């Protein structure tokens, strides 16, 4: 029988992980630590769950599907994380993500106290790594951190007060660093190159007769033909010539979700330009904070993603509700909350038309 606070603790962690694995195909827990009775995995929501024993070397390579590899507390009891990550590499596919659940290194004394007072059984963690350490390790082993969530501030439910604290604290500046654990999602960089995928390009158009043909022509030249989806604006505010750059950013493994970003300011009417830009900056910063993903522009229509992920986003949207009527924020939200994507941005060129479609519609 595990104590109630421990159940609560793992339920919060499982809820955090489920937010993303619900839309994955599979979650596999590797290298369970001694003392782990399979609890976080039990409570996690995912179509397929398993845990595997033995050394990493015995496992087959993951297929191209969204598999989450769960390392729950493993790195807190490991001697050589760089070696572990390097060893894992040969088993992962481009679409695999490693989910690391780790103790807050600055609260190790709490863990020590809990052990002293017999609130907790097991071993004192030997390895306590900070976010800086994680990032350096990722760099050495050629991974990239794509998501960080602080989880569990109060491991007791306390008639709902504990749950309230756990819900609100992640949004409070500075204090949010006091979480007992963090959940870190990393992805492999430089995946082995598969055959170049085919692409579909979706051009959203309304009252854009004159812009249809110029949009298609440069793409034909770039050899773009059907499995990835590129969204382009029919108003040609973003040069279709940059389409190949989106595909290149995807193909070289920079990210699984490529987001356009207009950094060149529109030259039409200074006042409007400035106001628009202010709005863009505000929403870019706000969304960066809300999602925990650095975005330079959250409102640029141009995006590139795989069909499989687009289908996952559809499933996510059904659960989340259709809150957004212009598509960009919606796809970014799903991209981030499912945590499947690292978002790299392709800088887009100058706006060509006198006014963009969004402006003329509104």
């Amino acid at each position, binding site marked *: 029988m595990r104590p109630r606070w421990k159940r609560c603790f793992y339920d919060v962690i499982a809820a955090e992980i489920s937010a993303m694995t619900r839309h994955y195909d599979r979650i596999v827990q590797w290298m369970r630590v001694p003392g782990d009775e399979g609890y976080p995995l039990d409570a996690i929501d995912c179509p397929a769950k398993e845990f595997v024993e033995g050394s990493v070397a015995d496992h087959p390579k993951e297929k191209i599907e969204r598999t989450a590899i769960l390392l729950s507390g493993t790195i807190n009891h490991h001697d050589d994380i760089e070696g572990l990550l390097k060893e894992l590499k040969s088993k992962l596919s481009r679409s695999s993500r490693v989910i690391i659940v780790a103790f807050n290194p600055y609260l190790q004394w709490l863990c020590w106290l809990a052990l002293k007072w017999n609130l907790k059984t097991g071993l004192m963690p030997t390895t306590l*790594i900070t976010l800086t*350490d994680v990032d350096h390790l990722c760099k*050495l082993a*050629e991974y990239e951190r794509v998501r960080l969530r602080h989880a569990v501030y109060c491991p007791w439910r306390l008639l709902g007060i504990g749950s309230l604290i756990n819900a609100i604290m992640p949004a409070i500046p500075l204090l949010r660093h006091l979480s007992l654990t963090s959940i870190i999602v990393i992805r492999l960089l430089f995946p082995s190159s598969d055959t170049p995928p085919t692409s579909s390009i979706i051009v959203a158009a309304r009252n854009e007769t004159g812009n249809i043909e110029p949009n298609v022509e440069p793409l034909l030249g770039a050899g773009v033909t059907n499995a990835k989806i590129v969204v382009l604006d029919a108003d040609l505010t973003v040069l279709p010539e940059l389409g190949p750059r989106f595909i290149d950013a995807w193909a070289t493994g920079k990210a699984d979700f490529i987001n356009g970003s207009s950094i060149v300011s529109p030259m039409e009417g200074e006042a409007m330009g400035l106001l628009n830009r202010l709005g863009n900056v505000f929403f870019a910063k706000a969304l960066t904070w809300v999602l925990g993903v650095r975005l330079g522009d959250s409102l640029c229509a141009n995006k590139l993603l795989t069909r499989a992920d687009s289908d996952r986003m559809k499933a996510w949207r059904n659960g989340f509700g259709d809150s957004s009527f212009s598509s960009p924020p919606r796809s970014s939200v799903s991209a981030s909350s499912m945590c499947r994507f690292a978002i790299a941005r392709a800088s887009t060129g100058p706006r060509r038309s006198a006014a963009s479609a969004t402006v003329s519609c509104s």
Partner: protein
Amino acid sequence: MLPRWKRYSNRVVAAEVSATTRYYDRVVQWMRTPGDDGDVLEAIESPQKELAETSIPDCSNEESRRTAILLAGTINHHYDVEGLLRDMKPRLSRTSRVLVIAFNPYLQWLYWLALKLKLKAGVMPTTFVTLTDLDNICRLAGYERVRFRQFLYCPWRLLGLGSLINALMPAVPFLRYLSLASLTIVRPLIPQTGRRPSLSIVIPARNERGNIAPAVERILATGIGAEVIFVEGHSSDGTWEEIERVRTEYASRITIKAFRQDGRGKADAVRLGFSEASGDLLAILDADLTMPPELLPRFVAAWAEGNADFVNGSRIVYPMEGEAMRFLNRLGNVFFAKAVTWVLGVRLGDCLCGTKLVMRSDYERMCRWRRDFGDFDPFGDFELLFPAAILGLGIVDVPIRYRARTYGSTNIRRFRHGLMLLRMTIIGLFRVKLGKLP
């Protein structure tokens, strides 16, 4: 004739750039903007300065030379920054750096005002790039940001008041984002190909007789093929005799050099060892073997894969030496790591680990930097980390498991040495963090 505020501003820009380029071999300005009259480049300090008109010189064969490509305001007038960086990359080597001077994107309205009020001539820049944008562009084009400085808050000297503001503001939280311009240094990500560089391992030893033979034995076992340089410092337990014995015993299997330092302290020992080294890469290994020699190949690999030009050890697991001491030590380590991260603007997990790896050509640059900066570090950690950050080498931490020593006792005295470290950090705050003035 330039207006006085403009001349002063250009001098501030040049002072920031010079802090780095003074120790480089040359600066090449590329894609000068139409309004640039060459005043900034003229004021920059570097052994060699050029203006590239048609293309940047091919630096791709440079192994030890460092060339800085200067883009002064260029990206603010460029439509395709990603393409610009991509086109440059094949002509750069791993030692090249691109220095980007850009306007503060959030203050573009000031620029617009200055143009309206005729304070400034020229055209309104088209492109304003935030740090997020620049990081993303770097990632797409295969570069990494290694340094970021904000400077120039007041473009007038105002009898020294403006200069005071320009010096202090970079250290003021939040307000530091109000700078008019920024200097970003990016490095191309290029893994080492071709020739394998040779390695020299310097081992400063004081009262470590029992660790000499194990050190050599374990380095041999890794098979990294290095030259080992022992520097002995006033030991009383016969360390020197043991080094000489080991040198003779292993003479057929590995090159061992041995020196006795005249001065005192680890920094002095490392300097002596490095000056006698012949390898392309220089590494320090502590003679207490708390950092296992088996991990040295990881340091070399981190360098060879192009992760960074300076590899810094980071001890994340400590030997158990009684909870209280261990806790205090850890606190001290965390404090200094955070403080140095803030002072240097480089994220470090640990700034007090003895083990580091640097290119010899860069070490020579660091010595020149030290001659200008003055001796301030008796331990030898900060006098390598500070210039590594200033030169924009790119630093990566290699986490190591710290083992308990099996022979002898520690030469560290916690509180006295802690105060010395604090003093050094404050020196860094004043001389590295604060804004550079002409």
